[in-house]
C-alpha cells in the first residue's frame, strides 16, 4: 500500500487548489484524477474573477495558492470591475486562455515536490474504526492517508440534458464516478440536486466581428497575484451583441422542447445565471439581452457567448443564435446543455470542511452546492490546509466572516446550507469595507506564514510591503494639521473643526495622495503602490471602527469552540427537541450554535457554561 498524508480526489479547481495547499504545508499529497490532462480545465466560461469572486482569488493568492498565478499567466483581457467605484467593491476579473490556464495549473502543481499526481478512479474509501484511512482505486490499488479531500464536482450522478435528450456524465465526454457516489450515499448524508447550464460554443471565424461593438481590457491591468504586476501574454478584446425580438420569439416558440421547461429537470438552478429560456419567460418585458462574445484563447477560434446558456435542442439553438446581430452565419461547434448533479448539504460539514459524519474526510467545491471556479478553489484551499493540519495532528484552521470572503462562504455554507448553486457576491459580506481585494494580503498572508503554507519569497515580499505600509502610516498620522494648514495645500474643511492628521483627511472627498504628499514630505518618498494602498486603508477607517464592536463579539463567539462529540443530552434545562437538534447539527462553535433555528439565549448560556466547566477541569480537550 502506498502511504500519503493527504489524498485529494478530483483534479478540478477545488482539487488542484487542495492538493497545492496540502503540498505547501509539507504533507505528502496524492492527487487522484480520472484524466491527468484534464487538471485545470475550465469547463464553463473562460474567465476568472469578478465581484466577490475576484476577492476570493485574491485571498487564495494571499495564502500562496495557485489560482491567482494561473489566471495572471493565462489572462488575455484584464478588467477591474467597478473601477470607478470605491476600492471595497472593486473586483479583478480576466478572460483566460483555456489552454494557457490549464498549462499554468499543471505547471504550478508540478513544482511541488511533495505532490504526486495519479491517474485513476477512486472506487471507495478505506475505513478503519469510524474514520477514513485512505482510498481504494478501481484497479484495486490501495492508497493510505490520514485525510482524504473529495472534490467530485458535477461527476456525482451527473445527468446532461440537451433538449429532450439526456445521458449520464459530468462534463461532455467524462464518465461519472458512480462507485464513490454509492459509498458516500451509505453515510446517509443529506443530499440535494442542482442544475447549471452552458451556452453553445461558436466558431469565431464565422462571426461578423466588423459590425459588433468591442470591449477592451483595462489600460493598466490589475493582476490577481500580489506577486505579479503585468500580464504575461498579449491582450485581446471581447465582442458585444444582444438578443432581439426574433430571438425571443424562437425561444418562446420552442419552450416545450427545452429540458428545463419541458419538465425533464428537477434540480434547482441559480437565479443569477438564468438560461435564455428563463430570461425570455421571467423578464418578458425586456426585448433585448446583452451577450459578451468571449474568445476562449489567443490561438483558439472557439468563442463563448456569455449570456445565452440553454437546454434547448441543437436545431433550435442554431435558429436562435443565427437570429442575433453578427452571428447570422455562425457555426455552433458544440451545442449548449444543462447539467444536473447531486450535492451534499454543506451543513453536514465543520467550518474546516471536514465531514461531521466521518473523520478524516473533507469535501470541497461543487459537491457542497457551490458554483464557480473561484468558490471551488477557495474551498479547496481550506480543505487542503485542514487535511494537512489533521495529518500533522495540528488544530484546524477556522476562517471567520470578519477576516475573509472565504470565511463568509464557509459560514454561509455550513450554517445556512444552500437552496441554489452558491455564488459569492460582495453583498454577502457584512464587513465589506474591511474585506477588500486590495488588502487580502494584509488580512491573510500573516496567517499563511504562521501556518507554514507561504513560500519564503512571498513571505519576504510581504514583510517588506508591511514594513513600508506601517512607515507610511506612521508618517501620515505623525502630525495633526489645523484647518488652516490643510487649506494651505488646497483642502477646504470647516474652520471650526479640530486638528486632523493626513491619514484622517485622506478619507475625505476630493483629498488625493498628492495632497497628503504635500502635507507630509516623507510620504512623498514612498513608492506609488504603497501610497495608493495607504490611501485605500485610510478611506474606510471610520466605518470599520464602527463595525469593530460587532466584529469582536462575533469573533468571541466563534472562538468558543464546541468539541466534536459534545453530549447535549442530559444538560439540565435543555429541551429534548433542542438537544436532539444540537446533537444532529453538532455546531462547531457558539456562533454556529446561535444560528440554529429555535435556539434560545438560555440554552446558549447553558452550553457556554458547560464548555467553560469542561475546559476548567480539562475534559473534552
Amino acid at each position, binding site marked *: 500500500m502506498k502511504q500519503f498524508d493527504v489524498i485529494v480526489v478530483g483534479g478540478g479547481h477545488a482539487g488542484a487548489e487542495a492538493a497545492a495547499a496540502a503540498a505547501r504545508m509539507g504533507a505528502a499529497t496524492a492527487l487522484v484524477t480520472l484524466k491527468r490532462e484534464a487538471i485545470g480545465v475550465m469547463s464553463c466560461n473562460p474567465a476568472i474573477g*469578478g*465581484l*466577490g469572486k475576484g476577492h476570493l482569488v485574491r485571498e487564495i493568492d494571499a495564502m500562496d495558492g495557485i489560482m491567482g498565478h494561473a489566471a495572471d499567466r493565462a489572462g488575455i483581457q484584464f478588467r477591474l*470591475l*467597478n473601477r*470607478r*467605484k*470605491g476600492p*471595497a*467593491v472593486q473586483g479583478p476579473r480576466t478572460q483566460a486562455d483555456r489552454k494557457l490556464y490549464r498549462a499554468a495549473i499543471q505547471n504550478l502543481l508540478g513544482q511541488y515536490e511533495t505532490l504526486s499526481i495519479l491517474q485513476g478512479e477512486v472506487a471507495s474509501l478505506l475505513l478503519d474504526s469510524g474514520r477514513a484511512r485512505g482510498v481504494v482505486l478501481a484497479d484495486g490499488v490501495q492508497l493510505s492517508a490520514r485525510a482524504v479531500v473529495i472534490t467530485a464536482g458535477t461527476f456525482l450522478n451527473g445527468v446532461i440534458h440537451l433538449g429532450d435528450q439526456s445521458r449520464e456524465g459530468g462534463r461532455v465526454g467524462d464518465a461519472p464516478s458512480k462507485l464513490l457516489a454509492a459509498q458516500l450515499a451509505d453515510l446517509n448524508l443529506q443530499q440535494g440536486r442542482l442544475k447549471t447550464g452552458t451556452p453553445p460554443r461558436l466558431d469565431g471565424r464565422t462571426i461578423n466581428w466588423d459590425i459588433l461593438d468591442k470591449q477592451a481590457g483595462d489600460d493598466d491591468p490589475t493582476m490577481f497575484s500580489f506577486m505579479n504586476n503585468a500580464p504575461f501574454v498579449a491582450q485581446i478584446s471581447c465582442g458585444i451583441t444582444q438578443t432581439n425580438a426574433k430571438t425571443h420569439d424562437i425561444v418562446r416558440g420552442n419552450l416545450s422542447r427545452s429540458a428545463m421547461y419541458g419538465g425533464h429537470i428537477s434540480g434547482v438552478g*441559480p*437565479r*443569477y*445565471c*438564468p438560461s435564455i429560456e428563463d*430570461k425570455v419567460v*421571467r*423578464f418578458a418585458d*425586456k426585448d433585448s*439581452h*446583452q*451577450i*459578451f462574445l468571449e474568445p476562449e484563447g489567443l490561438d483558439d477560434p472557439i468563442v463563448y457567448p*456569455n*449570456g445565452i446558456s440553454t437546454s434547448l435542442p441543437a436545431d433550435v439553438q442554431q435558429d436562435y443564435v443565427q437570429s442575433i446581430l453578427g452571428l447570422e452565419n455562425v457555426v455552433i461547434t458544440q451545442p449548449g446543455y444543462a447539467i444536473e448533479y447531486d450535492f451534499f448539504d454543506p451543513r453536514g460539514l465543520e467550518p474546516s470542511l471536514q465531514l461531521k459524519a466521518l473523520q478524516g474526510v473533507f469535501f470541497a467545491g461543487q459537491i457542497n452546492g457551490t458554483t464557480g471556479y473561484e468558490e471551488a478553489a477557495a474551498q479547496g484551499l481550506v480543505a487542503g490546509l485542514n487535511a494537512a493540519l489533521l495529518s500533522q495532528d495540528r488544530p484546524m484552521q477556522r476562517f471567520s466572516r470578519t477576516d475573509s470572503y472565504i470565511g463568509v462562504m464557509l459560514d*454561509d455554507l455550513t450554517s*445556512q446550507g444552500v*437552496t441554489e448553486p452558491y455564488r459569492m*457576491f*460582495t*453583498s*454577502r459580506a*457584512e464587513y*465589506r*469595507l474591511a474585506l477588500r481585494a486590495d488588502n487580502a494580503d494584509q488580512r491573510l498572508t500573516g496567517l499563511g506564514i504562521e501556518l507554514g503554507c507561504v513560500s519564503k519569497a512571498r513571505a519576504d515580499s510581504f514583510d517588506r510591503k508591511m514594513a513600508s505600509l506601517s512607515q507610511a502610516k506612521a508618517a501620515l498620522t505623525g502630525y495633526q494639521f489645523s484647518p488652516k494648514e490643510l487649506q494651505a495645500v488646497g483642502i477646504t474643511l470647516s474652520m471650526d473643526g479640530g486638528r486632523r492628521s493626513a491619514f484622517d483627511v485622506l478619507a475625505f*472627498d476630493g483629498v488625493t495622495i498628492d495632497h497628503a504628499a504635500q502635507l507630509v514630505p516623507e510620504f512623498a518618498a514612498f513608492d506609488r503602490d504603497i501610497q495608493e494602498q495607504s490611501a485605500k486603508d485610510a478611506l474606510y477607517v471610520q*466605518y470599520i471602527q464602527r463595525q469593530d*464592536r460587532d466584529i*469582536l463579539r462575533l469573533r*468571541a463567539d466563534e472562538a468558543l469552540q464546541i468539541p466534536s462529540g459534545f453530549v447535549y443530552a442530559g444538560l*439540565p*434545562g435543555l429541551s429534548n427537541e433542542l438537544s436532539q437538534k444540537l446533537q444532529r447539527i453538532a455546531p462547531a462553535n457558539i456562533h454556529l450554535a446561535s444560528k440554529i433555528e429555535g435556539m*434560545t*439565549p*438560555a*440554552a446558549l*448560556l*447553558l452550553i*457556554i*457554561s*458547560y464548555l*467553560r*466547566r469542561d475546559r476548567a477541569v480539562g475534559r473534552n480537550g
Partner: protein
Amino acid sequence: MDTIFALASARGRAGVAVIRISGPKAHWAISQLCDVPSPRRAALRALRFGGDVLDQAVVIVFDQGASFTGEESGELHLHGSLAVVAKVSEVLASMDGLRLAEAGEFTRRAMDNGNLDLTQVEGLADLIDAESESQRKQALQVLSGAIAAKVGPWRAAMLRAAALIEATIDFADEDVPVDVTPELRDLLQSLVRDIAAESRGSVAAEQIREGFEVAILGAPNIGKSTLLNALAKREAAITSEIAGTTRDIIEVRMSIAGLSVTLLDTAGLRDSHDVVESIGIARAKARAESADLRIFLAQDRAEVFPLIPRADDIFLLGKGDMRGASGPSVSGKTGQGVEELLAQIAQRLEGKAASAGVFTRQRHRSALLAAESALTKAIAFLPKASEQPELVATEIRVALTALEGILGHIGVEDLLGEIFSSFCIGK
C-alpha cells in the same frame, strides 16, 4: 467593549429602583453624574446632569475583578419612579460608549469572565427563558398587529433600496438600470419621513403604556392633598390645617378617561429652613419638571411659581370653597370644580395620547432613531452613489440592522431575492 446599563430591579413603581452599569466606562459614567464613592461603599449622592438634579441616589461602585460581571461596574439605587428611571436611563444612553444592555447581557458578561458557577447559570437560564418567552409572545403580538402594518412596508422599501444599490455594485457588468438614484432617493426620503414621525409618536405611546404623571403643585396649605383625595375618592394623603404636612411625594394610581394616570401630591412650594421639608420641596420641583401634566393651585391670580411654565399647565385657585366666584377654582373639601378638573385633565391627556404611535418601548425608539440617522446619512451620500455606492449601501445596512430587533432578521438571501426578481442578472 461597550459599557452597558439597564434597570436591574423590576419595572414599575417600587420603593427603590436599581440601575446597573457595567463595562470599561462604568466609573467614568457615574463620575459624570456625581463624585464616585470608593469601591464597595454605599454613598448618598445627588445625581446631576447638565445642571439638572436627576435624583438623590445611593451609589455603589465595584472595581474590575470584584463585581457581578467581573467588569468595572456600579449601581445607582434611585427612587422607584418611572420618570426618574426614564430620565437617568436617557442621560446614560446619551453618554459616549454607553448603551442599553440586551436581555441576559450582564449574565453573559459575568459568565464570560468566569464569575458564575453552574447552578447560578442554570437558575439564571430559567429566568431568561421566562423573560424571552414573554418577549417572544409580546413580539408575536406586536408582529401580528399595528406594528406589523407599519413595519411590513418599511421592510419592503428598505429591501428594495438595498437591492437597488447592491445591484449596481455586484452586477455592474450586467443589464441593471444605470441610474437607480431617483428611485433610491424617493424610497429613502419617504422612509426617513415615516420613521421620524413614528419615533415622535413613540414617546406618547410609551406614556400610554407606562401611564401619565399628573402633579399637583402649589403653596403650602392650599389644599393639594385634599384635592388629591377628592380626585382619588379615598384618603390617600394625610390632610391637616398645618402648612407643610405633606413632605414627601404621594402617588395615587387611577384611571381617567380610560388612561392610566398617576396623581402626585407634592410638598408645598415655599422657602423652608426645615431640612426635611426642603428636600421635599426640591423633590416636588424635580417631579414637576418630569410630570406629563401639572395642576397649579394658586393663592391668588397673580401668584408666580418657581417653575418654568408650560402651555398645557392647568392653573386654578385653591380652596375654592372659601373664595366665592372670583375665577376658576377648585375645592377638594366641597367637591366644587372637581368634576370640571377631571374633564380638563382627561382632555389634555387625550390630546397627548392622540399623537401616540404604535411603537411603545424605549428599545423601539432607539432603533427608530438609529435607523433614521443612518438613512439620513445614506441620502447625504446619494449624490456620490455612482462613485461610492458602498457607503450608501453601508448606511442602508446599518438602518436595517437597527430595525432588526423590531423587524425580525433580514438575511442576505432576502436581499439577493429582491435583486434577482427585479433585474435580469446573468450575462
